[in-house]
């Protein structure tokens, strides 16, 4: 008989094909029978059992189409032997068992083997090994029980009857075909597969799971625990339909907890089998029925055992309801990496003789499965055992022991208190060395620093350009400056700010401060003024050492300026002590920089350790000073040379432009050691030649092995150190000696703590992580800072007491290897979460950086990136410094203001007089059947109320229109009505049912509500104007709003454009604006805009183009002429309550208010005061009201985030690399969810002033607006290429296709102006603006240019 394979058999066959030599699917059992067994009767019983169990004798053959098929012969020839092993040593016995277990089956011949082994007179072992292709554990139980029954009958002299009524496995194969046809179940599993979690990295295992080797570790659950488990399963929140379901769910909860604790992954799946013997008849049929199905959970922060249990229960119910025969698929069976096998099979005594059953481990498993956990109770006596098959690739031998221990710990914790958090269970007992040991440095800082600085040491101490300073000269300089400092009133414990270029004076000043008992506060000369001013104030520095000409004093006139040039007096250096060495400012991720107070003891400790490490023989160290003095990395360079009697080579920073001192450093042959960031080293060609250089210390950021490899190869004798340390732990506290043979992939480890420093890696509940599991790195030791100056709360938060020891919480993620070496895993903040999956950006970056041609890569998300805080606001207009595309000068003037200076006069020309407005109305004939000259859009605010009043003053017949969007303040509405009544103006409200939907659309598209509202107003008012034949609609837009929506600086810098053209462009843009599909276009009746004539019948006039009124004058007019009063129930900038939702959403996404830009223009054109604008822009929104309104209109932040959350990579390369190639390589190296969405080529990766990658700068320069996974048509020919370049530059995107429609990719009239002015310049043409809209793709515009040029040539 031929039998096709079931779905699960097919998967087993395929799995075996993939690992042909592995015994991974062998299922050997041994049954120890403690009594006498008659071998002949046993063989007879076996013969009958096997002949009844037809599937067991099946042979696997290939069909002519090369598909597997099972062949069952009618003549079954049972394979069974007797073996006498009574004389065997236990060693020989186990060797035999292992060999039998692991011997592969030739499935074409026979898929089982059976032995009755005599071990003693009253001890027989039935060894029965089958391939999984023909059985499952239940099936073996069926065979065993039948064998026992047959043997009993034979022993009693009966002739057992053949069990002919039993359905054969063949019946199940038929049954499966129908059972699988269940759409509901199929949908359920389809849905589960669509959300398959990634492989969890247990113990940080990130390999590809190639091997099948495992070993089994287990334990019997003790009696007490069993009793407690039974009780637990009776609890109201735990009890399920059957005790088995409850127990399965408890075990699964603990297994999920284990995987979570060992991987940190929150979205997890466990595979668990369904027995599939759903029809009672199948309950006694041998054969492979089981199929595996996944149960998924998402673990939350603060998840308790109890709350996780409820999720597991839901998952288990779903699995039980939807599992069934024939539903298995490759996708389902590869959707989990751990298995929980709750085995139902039972094995009672054999023919009344006491028997123990054991499923032997073949020590090989499906390579996909990191771990399999079996729960067994073969005797059905409630004595449960737990066994783990653990893959050797994933778990080393210590970890295999630890897993069992951790599972027991978690199970005990759940039983003891299921309301406790899973994170809070200690898995590792605290090491004894964690007990507080007080280590204090015995070395005085001043002893270290001034050891060589003496009046008679002629060695060179400092070199700066041509200037050389010996130690004795340095001594004199310091002592003479000390006199000056003391005369100025500096005394012990004072803070002295130092604001100097890198120079001899800088070093002298720092040393003089220290000698005088003061602590120094470095303020680099290029520090932005706001930051510098904050540092001055915050540090309470009463003195600042700076050049006399320095402007720093203007920041705080109460500070005393001391010039670094010393007095001429020769005096003896007086060395005073004090607590602090320096205060270093670190930029907090949010808000203001924090001052870190470093004690003299901490600095002495670091320098002492660094000297021992980097100059173990006590050799002089000659080092360069070339990095920012405001960065604690530089402390090493600054002080180490003088602690060894070596020299410091000083490289002054340029006052402007990038600091490329590292290039000069790499040419200085005198140097013996360099301290730098990996980014610095990346700037160097590895062929540098520094014959004396012995030591390279890298710090400040993660060191990728890719960055250092070439340098290390070219300079094999160089000692390279990776030094880790936050400012709060004094420069460096953990150091690794780079080993080119071991540190090959990914980031170089950060190594081991300096002697006296201790590290601890903990989870979020402060519980220590097992070895190899990632957590937050905590540091303790003499290097720990005193705290944050003036910020006790922050100090308390970051410096904590744990096990009686003070630790600093670094916010860095790391794990420790077995050997104690610590591996940095990125900032906690660098972890990106997309779709619930945690992603390490570093991992992606190094995958891309490995590609041929790519030099460096930085990965981030473009949406989740928290918008940066403004460092400052333009001193003139108030525009925030992080407004995209705008640069700031040193004195904090924005580029828009600077540009405006140049074309201010032309802008003025664009604006008109009130008389011009009057003339428009005077010259327009009102049609006979129209009552009104114009519609005035009246919001009820001050600007539109004033405009209405002035129109009425002119004697113009106005119909006032107000949109009632449902959120206009009551007082504003009252204003509207009072003002209209007082002026005798007719008034009408507009309203739409679709308002809320429009708000949501506007928030999603533009992160404000105003755009949606404006478009609604224009649409509804135009409709009225058409109906009532009104020729004009007057807006109350401010001049600032013109620049937001209509005008751009190019309009005025490009002198070839006249004002009529500007108006044409605006009109053209308006047409397109109304025809753009969005919520307004879709939900309101807006079809009339399709007709071009509408725009002639109804024209828009902006009142404030014609009226230039001072705020005071405007307010006076409102006060005296109109019954208008300032609403008290809204923010100051608006009369609309929903507006603050827009402000909040915009601030959250972009980091600044949607009013920041238009208000800056109001200020620039003189319509608003800067302070007033800033106050309005920075106004606090009422979070509760915002949340309420969001709920009312049906806006949720979530939908917005989902749309925009995308991985992006910024990279530099030697050559042009097609994005498709980059994406393809990523697909090959990374799981799908880690493949970046955007690939952005940048000429260079910008660095912060501290030499670290400036991710924010990259992000600010680029904001994606659409799907880039589409086909891109590349430019052809010179014209298209030039146009493509222009579009790319103006629209700031790298993915333009030459068939992209201008508007559909976010083009607007502002960009059109920029594009056109560039085109006209480049091609020396005078093309008109509307052509950009008319010929709206790169292709068609290129044709237009070609045609234009051709016609010009023929006419000339």
């Amino acid at each position, binding site marked *: 008989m031929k039998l096709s394979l079931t779905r699960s058999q097919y998967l087993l066959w395929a799995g075996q094909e993939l690992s042909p030599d592995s015994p991974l699917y062998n299922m050997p059992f041994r049954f120890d029978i403690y009594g006498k067994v008659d071998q002949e009767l046993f063989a007879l019983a076996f013969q009958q059992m096997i002949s009844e169990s037809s599937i067991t004798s099946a042979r696997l053959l290939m069909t002519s189409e090369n598909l597997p098929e099972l062949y069952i012969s009618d003549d079954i020839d049972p394979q069974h032997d007797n073996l006498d092993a009574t004389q065997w040593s236990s060693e020989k016995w186990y060797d035999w068992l292992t060999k039998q277990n692991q011997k592969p089956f030739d499935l074409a011949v026979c898929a089982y083997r059976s032995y009755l082994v005599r071990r003693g007179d009253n001890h027989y072992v039935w060894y029965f090994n089958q391939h999984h292709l023909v059985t499952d554990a239940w099936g073996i139980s069926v065979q065993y029980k039948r064998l026992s029954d047959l043997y009993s009958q034979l022993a009693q002299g009966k002739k057992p009857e053949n069990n002919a009524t039993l359905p054969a496995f063949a019946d199940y194969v038929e049954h499966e075909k129908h059972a699988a046809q269940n759409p509901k179940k199929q949908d359920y599993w389809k849905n589960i597969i669509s959300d398959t979690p990634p492989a969890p990295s247990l113990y940080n295992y990130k390999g590809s799971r190639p091997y099948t080797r495992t070993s089994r570790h287990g334990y019997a659950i003790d009696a007490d625990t069993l009793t407690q488990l039974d009780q637990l399963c009776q609890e109201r929140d735990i009890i*399920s*339909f059957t005790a088995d379901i409850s127990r399965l769910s408890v075990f699964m909860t603990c297994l999920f907890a284990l995987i979570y604790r060992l991987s940190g992954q929150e979205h997890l799946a466990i595979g668990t089998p*369904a*027995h599939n013997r*759903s*029809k009672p*008849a199948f309950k006694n049929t041998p054969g492979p029925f089981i199929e595996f199905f996944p149960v998924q959970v998402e673990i939350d922060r603060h998840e308790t055992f109890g709350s996780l249990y409820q999720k597991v229960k839901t998952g288990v119910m779903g699995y039980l309801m939807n599992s069934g025969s024939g539903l298995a698929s490759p996708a389902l069976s590869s959707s989990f990496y751990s298995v929980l096998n709750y085995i139902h099979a039972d094995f009672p005594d054999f023919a009344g003789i006491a028997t123990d059953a054991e499923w032997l481990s073949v020590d090989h498993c499906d390579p996909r499965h990191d771990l399999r956990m079996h729960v067994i109770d073969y005797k059905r006596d409630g004595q449960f055992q737990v066994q783990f098959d653990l893959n050797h690739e994933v778990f080393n031998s210590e970890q295999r022991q630890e897993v069992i221990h951790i599972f027991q710990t978690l199970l005990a914790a759940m039983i003891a208190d299921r309301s406790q958090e899973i994170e809070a269970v200690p898995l590792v007992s605290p090491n004894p060395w964690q007990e507080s040991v007080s280590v204090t440095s015995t070395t005085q800082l001043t002893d270290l620093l001034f050891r060589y600085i003496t009046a008679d040491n002629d060695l060179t101490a400092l070199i700066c350009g041509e200037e050389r300073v010996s130690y004795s000269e340095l001594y004199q300089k310091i002592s003479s400056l000390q006199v000056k400092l003391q005369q100025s009133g500096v005394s012990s414990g004072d803070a002295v700010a130092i604001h100097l270029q890198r120079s001899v004076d800088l070093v002298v000043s720092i040393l003089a401060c220290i000698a005088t008992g003061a602590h120094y506060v470095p303020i680099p000369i290029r520090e932005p003024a706001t930051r510098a001013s904050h540092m001055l104030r915050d540090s309470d520095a009463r003195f600042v050492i700076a050049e006399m000409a320095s402007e720093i004093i203007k920041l705080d006139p109460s500070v005393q300026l001391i010039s670094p040039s010393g007095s001429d007096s020769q005096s003896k250096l007086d060395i005073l002590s004090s607590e602090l060495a320096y205060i270093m400012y670190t930029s907090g991720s949010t808000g203001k920089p924090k001052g870190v107070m470093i004690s003299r003891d901490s600095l002495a400790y670091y320098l002492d350790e660094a000297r021992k490490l980097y100059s173990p023989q006590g050799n002089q160290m000659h080092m360069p000073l070339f990095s920012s003095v405001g960065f604690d990395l530089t402390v090493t360079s600054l002080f180490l040379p003088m602690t060894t009697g070596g020299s410091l080579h000083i490289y002054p920073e340029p006052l402007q432009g990038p600091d490329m001192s590292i290039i000069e450093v790499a040419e200085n042959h005198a140097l013996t050691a360099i301290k730098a960031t990996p980014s610095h080293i990346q700037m160097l060609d590895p062929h540098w030649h520094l014959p004396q250089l012995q030591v390279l210390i890298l710090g400040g950021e993660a060191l990728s092995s890719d960055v250092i490899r070439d340098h290390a190869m070219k300079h094999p004798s160089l000692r390279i150190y990776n030094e880790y340390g936050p400012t709060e732990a004094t420069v460096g506290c953990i150091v690794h000696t780079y080993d080119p043979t071991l540190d090959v992939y990914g980031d170089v480890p950060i190594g081991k703590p300096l002697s006296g420093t201790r590290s601890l890696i903990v989870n979020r509940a402060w519980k220590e992580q097992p070895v190899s599991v990632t957590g937050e790195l905590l540091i303790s030791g003499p290097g720990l800072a005193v705290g944050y100056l003036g910020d006790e709360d922050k100090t308390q938060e970051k410096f904590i007491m744990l096990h009686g020891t003070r630790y600093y919480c670094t916010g860095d993620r790391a794990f420790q290897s077995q050997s104690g070496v610590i591996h940095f895993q990125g900032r906690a903040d660098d972890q990106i979460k997309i779709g619930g999956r945690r992603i390490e950006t570093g991992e992606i970056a190094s995958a891309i950086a490995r590609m041929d041609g790519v030099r460096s890569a930085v990965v981030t998300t473009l949406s989740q990136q928290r918008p940066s805080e403004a460092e400052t606001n333009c001193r003139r207009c108030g525009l925030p410094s992080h407004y995209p595309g705008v640069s700031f000068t040193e004195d904090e003037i924005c580029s828009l203001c600077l540009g405006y200076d140049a074309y201010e006069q032309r802008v003025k020309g664009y604006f008109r007089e009130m008389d011009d407005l009057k003339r428009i109305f005077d010259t327009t004939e009102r049609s006979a059947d129209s009552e009104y000259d114009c519609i005035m859009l009246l919001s009820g605010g001050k600007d539109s109320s004033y405009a209405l009043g002035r129109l009425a003053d002119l004697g113009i017949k106005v119909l006032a229109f107000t949109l009632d969007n449902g959120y206009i303040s009551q007082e504003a509405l009252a204003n509207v009505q009072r003002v209209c009544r007082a002026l005798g103006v007719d008034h009408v409200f507009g309203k739409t049912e679709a308002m809320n939907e429009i708000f949501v659309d506007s928030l999603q598209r533009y992160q404000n509500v105003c755009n949606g509202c404006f478009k609604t107003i224009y649409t509804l008012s135009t409709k009225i104007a058409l109906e009532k034949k009104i020729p004009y609609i007057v807006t109350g837009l401010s001049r600032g709003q013109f620049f937001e929506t209509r005008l751009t600086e190019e309009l005025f810098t490009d002198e070839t454009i006249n004002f009529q053209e500007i108006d044409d462009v605006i009109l053209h843009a308006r047409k397109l604006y109304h025809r753009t599909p969005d919520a307004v276009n879709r939900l309101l009746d807006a079809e009339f805009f399709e007709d071009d004539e509408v725009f002639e019948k109804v024209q828009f006039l902006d009142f404030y183009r014609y009226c230039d009124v001072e705020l005071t004058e405007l307010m006076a007019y409102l006060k005296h002429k109109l019954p208008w009063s300032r609403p008290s129930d809204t923010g100051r900038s608006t009369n609309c309550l929903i507006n603050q939702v827009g402000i909040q959403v915009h601030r959250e996404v972009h980091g600044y208010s949607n009013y920041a830009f238009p208000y800056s223009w109001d200020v620039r054109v003189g319509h608003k005061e800067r302070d007033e604008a800033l106050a309005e822009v920075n106004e606090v929104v009422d979070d509760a009201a915002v949340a309420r309104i969001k709920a009312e209109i049906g806006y949720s932040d979530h939908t917005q985030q989902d749309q925009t959350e995308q991985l992006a990579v910024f990279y530099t390369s030697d050559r042009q690399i097609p994005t498709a190639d980059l994406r393809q390589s990523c697909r090959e190296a990374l799981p799908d969810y880690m493949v970046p969405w955007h690939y952005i080529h940048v000429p260079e990766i910008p660095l912060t002033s501290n030499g670290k990658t400036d991710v924010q700068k990259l992000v600010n320069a680029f904001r994606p607006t659409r799907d880039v996974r589409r086909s891109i048509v590349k430019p052809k020919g010179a014209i298209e290429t030039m146009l493509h370049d222009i579009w790319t530059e103006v629209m700031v995107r790298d993915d333009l296709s030459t068939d992209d429609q201008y508007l559909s990719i976010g083009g607007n009239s502002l960009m059109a102006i920029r594009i056109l002015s560039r085109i006209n310049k480049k091609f020396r043409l005078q093309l008109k603006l509307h052509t950009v809209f008319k010929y709206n793709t790169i292709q068609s515009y290129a044709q237009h240019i070609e045609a234009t040029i051709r016609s010009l040539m023929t006419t000339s």
Partner: protein
Amino acid sequence: MNATLLIDYLKQEILHDETIDISSSDNLLASGLVDSMGIVRYISWISERWNIEIPPQDMTIEHFITIDAIVAYLESRGAL
């Protein structure tokens, strides 16, 4: 009527044994009469037969311990 329908299906399709005597107040679960898979298949059928979604949080012992309990649950869901 509904109880009879429930009992008949239980006997025929879940237990595959029509000789068993089951009353509407018999404990279906504690006695081991119906196993884990069985009860879940039973619930599955009930959900389809009366056309209601039975959410996992409703899959409690109280609702399915006896035929009477099942009838009460169906009534509470407005299915009967």
